[in-house]
């Protein structure tokens, strides 16, 4: 095979999952979670992640998930004792000290909460990415995430404050830096993913989406989102292959509006079908283009606990992997 045709190779994900099977797993999970007042949810979540990954195939081999419900439960318990209980106690103390000055107490709690979020959110995000990637493998080789919390705190604090000060104009730069952090610290075995994008390339499209927001009743947001995905993908590479996304704003608009309608009219029970729609969208529009050079990759698994993952369950933040 010559170099030119290798560059044109498109490698896509194939998803073999079935909405009915996922619905069955979720129904059993629901019953067990209810009768155990939520305790089973950790095992249930693990089952779903395991199913979703095992149904996702790349180049003839399926992904595998190695996490356990027990790890998630332990992580959650630790996070609850280390963060939530002290936080609740501190909040109570603030209100008791403030006596009848409820406005002062509310202000103190809000400001303290805001500051804490700026630092805790990066902690949760990094911990969650580290845990989930370390428990995911393909062809026996584990993924890993090696980003440091302190680096993300800098990006997050700077990005949040500048976005506020510039009334949102800095946001595309912030989004790009967050994405860069996630991708360029992700590894498959010993090899890392690369990203060479720059926020300034998204500034004009973002500005256009702001200007067109009200005239299009917010619908132009889908076109910006699709453009952003395409840009991020095109600047992400692994070894000699580059990612690409052919999803358009119209594809995304159809997907999201259809999903929302299905969920509302099925009172939430239609979620498995939504997930299948999403996986189909991904496998139809996302690809890794070029030659896959796997021969120089070796196992380089990282030891990670589920502590931050447990905290993520409490505060309901998605680590960005949507599994």
């Amino acid at each position, binding site marked *: 095979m010559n170099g030119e045709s290798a560059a044109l190779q498109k490698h896509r994900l194939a998803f*073999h999952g*079935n909405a009915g*099977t996922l*619905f*069955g797993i979720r*129904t*059993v999970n*629901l*019953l067990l*979670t*209810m*009768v155990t*007042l*939520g305790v089973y*949810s*950790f095992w*249930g*979540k693990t089952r779903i992640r*395991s*199913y979703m990954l*095992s*149904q996702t195939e790349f180049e*003839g*081999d*399926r992904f*595998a998930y*190695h996490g356990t419900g027990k790890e998630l439960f332990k992580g959650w318990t630790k996070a609850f004792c280390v963060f939530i209980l002290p936080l609740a106690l501190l909040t109570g103390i603030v209100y008791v000290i403030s006596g009848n000055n409820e406005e002062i107490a509310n202000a103190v709690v809000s400001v303290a909460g805001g500051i804490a979020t700026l630092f805790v959110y990066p902690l949760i995000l990094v911990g969650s990415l580290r845990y989930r990637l370390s428990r995911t*493998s*393909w*062809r*026996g*080789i584990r993924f890993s995430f090696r980003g440091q919390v302190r680096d993300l705190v800098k990006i997050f604090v700077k990005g949040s404050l500048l976005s506020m000060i510039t009334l949102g104009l800095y946001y595309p730069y912030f989004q790009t830096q967050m994405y860069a952090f996630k991708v360029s610290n992700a590894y498959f*075995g010993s090899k890392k993913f690369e990203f060479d994008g720059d926020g300034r390339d998204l500034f004009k499209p973002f500005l256009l989406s702001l200007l067109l927001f009200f005239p299009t009743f917010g619908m132009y947001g889908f076109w910006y989102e699709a453009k952003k995905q395409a840009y991020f993908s095109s600047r992400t590479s692994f070894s000699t292959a580059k990612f690409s996304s052919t999803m358009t704003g119209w594809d995304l608009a159809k997907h999201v509006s259809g*999903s*929302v309608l299905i*969920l*509302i009219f*099925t*009172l*939430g*029970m*239609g*979620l498995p079908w*939504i997930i299948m729609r999403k996986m189909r969208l991904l496998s139809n529009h996302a690809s890794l283009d070029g030659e896959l050079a*796997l*021969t120089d*990759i*070796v*196992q380089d*698994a990282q030891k990670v606990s589920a502590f931050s993952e447990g905290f*993520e*369950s409490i505060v*309901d933040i*998605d680590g960005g992997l949507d599994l």
Partner: protein
Amino acid sequence: MLHYKNDWPAFYFDGQTPQRQKVKIRLYTSSLVIVKDDGSQIKWDYGSIRQTQGFYAGETIRLERGEDITEALVIEEPDFLSALRSVAPGISQKIDSPSLRKLRPSLMFVSGIGVIVFVAIVYLGFIPAFTSWAAYRVPAKWEKGLGEKIVSDLVPDSKKCEDKKVRNTVNRIRDALVKNLPQSPYEFKVMVVQDPLVNAFALPGGIILVYAGLMEQTKTPEELAGVLAHEVQHIERRHTTKRILQHSSMRFLLAAATGKAESLAQLGFDAAYLLGAMRYSRAQEQEADILGLKLLSKSGFPPRAYISFLKSMQKEDDSLPSYFKYLLTHPRISERVRKLEEIVSLYPAETQTKVNSGAEWKKLKKACHAVK
């Protein structure tokens, strides 16, 4: 003896590199042997193996060994699992049985029924019983604090009607009703709000807000007495406190059921939750209607006064489509009137408690005219 195939084709991953090695698997009674293309062999004892994929039809089978360095075998032939179970019966507990897969739809169906039964027991049985028990154990002082907080948020001082004649009349009606509730832990206060809203609210702890719009809608003071009797019963029966406890219990149930609430699924659950919460609310309105009528009569007011007030509000309510029945927090007025008509004949019709004459009331009810 079951006939089985030896030399099962498979792919082997050594856990060190992503290389896919084509191998053959030979099954023995206590172990399997992996035979590579170059003839070298690796033995896996069954005690060290776990199955991690291949639980669903069409899915490749995956066996793994090891923790830090995990080796894996991927087998595409679906008969492999049955063969493995027959060669090594001791491994049955660790290996999926394809013949039991056909039970999965039944398991899903039973789980689904289980969920419905569990939710029905909790929603129809446990939550009402728990909230009834708990509501009467919430100190009246806490309820009063909550009610006062709601008033300070809802009613600015400029909108509180200070007209002396109105306050005296309204307080006389209140006293006539409340003297028939000697066991009540609440100190009832009626506040007239200068707002065109045609409504009245019972707040926890004893405060009743009556809006000027509603006062102007009444034809006689006895009709207002009917409305106040209804609101007093909401407070006496701790409906708002029960509603807060019901809503918290339902939210807890939904949070426990969903674990981490996916934000999109939450849309669907919110819809279910709202529909469920409305059912509780309608039952409370009915209870307040019936007990309010009883209190009205006991206090010497003609019970038909309340029915005539409801009828005056009926026209607007009737214009709503019938499917709104499920969306309203109160039953349709026509339904409320019908239910009250069934029991009104049990109560004496005469007026024993006189408040104002019709002409006096016509003037008085406009004294707290709605301020925009």
